[in-house]
């Protein structure tokens, strides 16, 4: 309920945030706060300092950059869900953003926070992984771009250095067939298992939520579809290479079953 004591600093710019993060190895970035603050209130997370980037004005945008669509890291889920550029050109991102949590969460939570938190149960990371998104990070030595496939390294861990700020997410234009299947107990819950399927380069990319320590790609399914398999037989490979959790929402065994059902349904929808 009441977090352990911490310092608070508000960054006016990305540069200032980077510098503040460099000054304290136990500092954490505060954006929408919808993952960090609940953990702090339970005293599971005890950062020494919060660097609040929530008021950096120029990090909230969605724009068509020609090749890709660029999404500012501070864009709220609500704004991502309602961005026309995404709804038209990469609808799975807009749709998935609209499925996160509840309206209050979507008005506060940010896409950057969702990505940087590295939660394998988060909705957007596996969508972005399926899309081969790129993430732009700014640190003391300037900016760099990290491919989604290299970004999620372990449970709640990403390729971001402690003094780097995620500033932008770039997604391809993908308005062919797609499907987003989120199986959850309650509307505001994390997915027990989530599946995103997007048609790309003549095949299908499939991202999996909550099937391992990181968001995953269902490589076996993608290969099978590429080889001409029908959805049911491709989906039989959906749990290959996964390590699903065992928790109150479902056993690993159940998730292995569920992911096959959801992938089959997602493929049927995306390829229809």
């Amino acid at each position, binding site marked *: 309920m009441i977090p352990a004591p911490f310092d608070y600093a508000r960054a006016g710019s990305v540069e200032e945030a980077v510098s503040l993060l460099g000054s304290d190895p136990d500092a954490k970035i505060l954006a929408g706060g919808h993952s960090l603050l609940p953990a702090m209130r339970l005293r599971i997370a005890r950062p020494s300092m919060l660097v609040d980037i929530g008021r950096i004005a120029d990090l909230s945008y969605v724009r068509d950059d020609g090749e890709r669509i660029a999404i500012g890291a501070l864009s709220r889920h609500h704004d991502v869900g309602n961005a026309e550029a995404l709804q038209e050109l990469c609808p799975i991102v807009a749709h998935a953003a609209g499925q996160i949590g509840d309206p209050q969460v979507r008005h506060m939570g940010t896409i950057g926070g969702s990505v940087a938190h590295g939660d394998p149960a988060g909705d957007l990371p596996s969508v972005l992984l399926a899309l081969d998104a790129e993430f732009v990070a700014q640190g003391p030595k300037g900016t760099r771009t990290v491919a989604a496939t290299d970004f999620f390294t372990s449970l709640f861990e990403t390729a971001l250095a402690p003094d780097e700020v995620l500033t932008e997410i770039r997604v391809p234009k993908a308005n062919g067939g797609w499907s987003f299947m989120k*199986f959850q107990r309650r509307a505001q819950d994390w997915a027990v298992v989530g599946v995103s399927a997007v048609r790309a380069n003549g095949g299908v990319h499939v991202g999996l939520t909550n099937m391992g320590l990181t968001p995953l790609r269902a490589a076996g399914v993608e290969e099978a579809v590429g080889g001409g398999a029908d959805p*049911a037989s491709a989906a039989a490979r959906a749990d290959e290479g996964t390590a699903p959790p065992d*928790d109150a929402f*479902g*056993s690993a065994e159940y998730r*292995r*079953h569920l992911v096959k*059902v959801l992938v089959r349904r997602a493929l049927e929808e995306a390829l229809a």
Partner: protein
Amino acid sequence: MVATEPFVGRPVLRKEDPELITGEAQYVDNWTMPGMVWMALVRPPYVHATIDAIETAEAAAMPGVVGVFTAADLELGALPFVWPITEDIKVPVRYPLTGDKIRFAGDAVAVVVAERREQAIDAAELVSITATELPAVTDIEKAAADGAPLLHDELGTNVTVHWVHGGAGDQSVFETAPVIVTERYVQPRLIPNAIEPRGCLAYGVPAMNEWTLVSATQIPHIVKVTLSGVIGSEKNLRVIAPDVGGGFGSKLNVYAEEALALALAKRLGRPVKWIEERSENYVATTHGRGVLHDVTLAADEQGKLIGMKFVELADMGAYYQLLTPGIPELGGWVYMGPYDPQSYWYEFRGVVTNATPTDAYRGAGRPEATYVIERAMDVLARKVGKDPAEVRRINLHAPFLEATPFICGLSVDSGNFEPLLDKALELVGYEQLRKEQAARRDAGDVRQLGIGVTTYIEMCGLAPSNILGALRYAAGGWDGATIECLPSGEVILKTGTSPHGQGHDTAWSQIVADGLGVDPDKVTVLHGDTQVSPLGMDTYGSRSVSVGGVAILFAMEKIKEKARTIAAHELEVSEDDLAWADGAYRVSGAPDKARTIPEIAVSAWHAHALPDGVEPHLNATAVYDPKNFTWPAGAHVCVVEVDTETGAADIIQYIAVDDCGTVINPMIVEGQVHGGVAQGIAEALYEEAIYDEVGNLTTSSMSQYLIPSAVEIPHMTTDNSQETPSSTNPLGVKGIGEAGTIASPPTVINAVVDALSHLGVTEVGKPASPERVWRAIQEATTGSPGVSGGLGGATPAQQEGGTA
């Protein structure tokens, strides 16, 4: 003279809502006092351990800390336990802080007092406990087994109580009847989750030794009696229940924190406040359910019940709270349901475990009973090859309007059960649904349809004091009402009930308005303060209207008797010439010659010309002790769609037909049914407190403990139009606070099982999570609960036997 429609029976808008929905309500956390300090409890990092040392110096040195106290520092008496249900019950003694041994995660070992709340919480983290960990047991069967780790060495066993109903009728039928159903049902623990956690504030006038406890409680009157020992004298203690944000039984208790706040306020001479954190609430506030039943039904080949037998193991938790072993016993009187068997048996054993104490949770014993009766009735229906609605119909007790003995040994006040079942089946469109179900089965649809039907009876309106006494409960079951008719025309009602969301302000005003011929808006209902309204037994067990509400009726009779004397005097007629009509005493044959209660209140107040022997002021008090319980009944129907691939069950229709006797306010009744059914759906499909092997609660927050939201709760059709008056009281009321929670869990689970019965599924545990449903399908169709595969929908080829 215009006849006015009675207010009773009208959906009058709730008076209490404007404050509640505009943030103006005053919960205990809204209270603050000059010089107030905050309390934080030190909860242990163990669930079972002997305490070797408690180190408090580091915490005591933290900023703002006023003191750190252990059991040895405070030397408080044991916490109250008021329901020793048998002569030989073993009672674990519980102190507000534990000094020798930790027996569950909420068993606080120390309390920190600091100037600010966060200082107290920060310092509490620094109290270190050296303890020797012991093996923990949270499973009831394991705890009851020989060689289990003992919670209380001095008791010599974990099976601390054995209550036997004693039975009725020929007990051999459970072996000799033509049809015997034997089933075992597990009902997991539930966490009540009132939206407002517990909290209290103790303050006083030390020089006068006068103390006040403001507490988020359902039972200020019982708290006052049971905690008076903490400050030395009952006359010096006042307990206030301010606006209370729900209870569901979890605030029908007297807690360690209340005793500690009072003791520390007295010791420190400063107001002491405590507000529970939600994560604390999950381990330190009582849980509900946590029972296991072995059921035997004896019937003839037609499915007509001959006998009903239930043997239960009930999880008490680490200690008894106020009522703990009394909860299964309360259920012990309704195991016949609305049926009419000739033989009856019920017994339970209470088992202590290294888990949070259990106690009342909405329905308290009756949902547990109704669940196992109604689950087994469906098994009986399948066994005799009959529709589940039909099996219930042939077993329903015949209608009766006067108290009638039932096989459980108590008399039921009134009942007319079959029309309730008819109504529910009609509202849901039962026959059409069965056709649709058959079509989906034939088509091998992925989404299969299931229908659950429940008929139930419950026992509420707690309670006749003499019966409570016979059941060895320490308190009575009466309630009080004091009415004052003020010269301004306003009426003050002081009720002994203590609402925490039920709408008593509104419903009680409707009763007064009809009885005294005043507008409900002129009635102010005062409650929840032992100084303002000292005569009461509070709110729980759907008792408020059928005890406290009836007390109002008797107080009004006294008011009207006095008013009639005054009116006759003023109108210069004999009292026999007056009749009460249209809100006034009127002269027979000359109805315009009349006196209203507000007019008489003025006369009684100025007292200029009262008849001889009549005391000034129009006021009266009545204390009412019911002669019987009240027995609501009803029929619920649930329709689910089950995704046979994922196991997800969606409720697509829910029908609740409940007969709660006279309805005071249909809108409030409907709200109670909605809330109760929602809570029962939660129990059936979502909620379950889970402990791991070493005794940790893994569902320790609202993210893991699944309370459904409005999105998950379906539209409900309610019907309360059948109002069979209770023969227990002159209002004819029965109570509706718990009916929804009692009837709905088996209705939902039976619907889920029904959806899958053609696949050979006969049982799905509670809560019917998608995984449980999926495993049940796997087990039925492949013979193994864990084998994956079979991605296709359920096909007719997989079907096997079973009707319904």
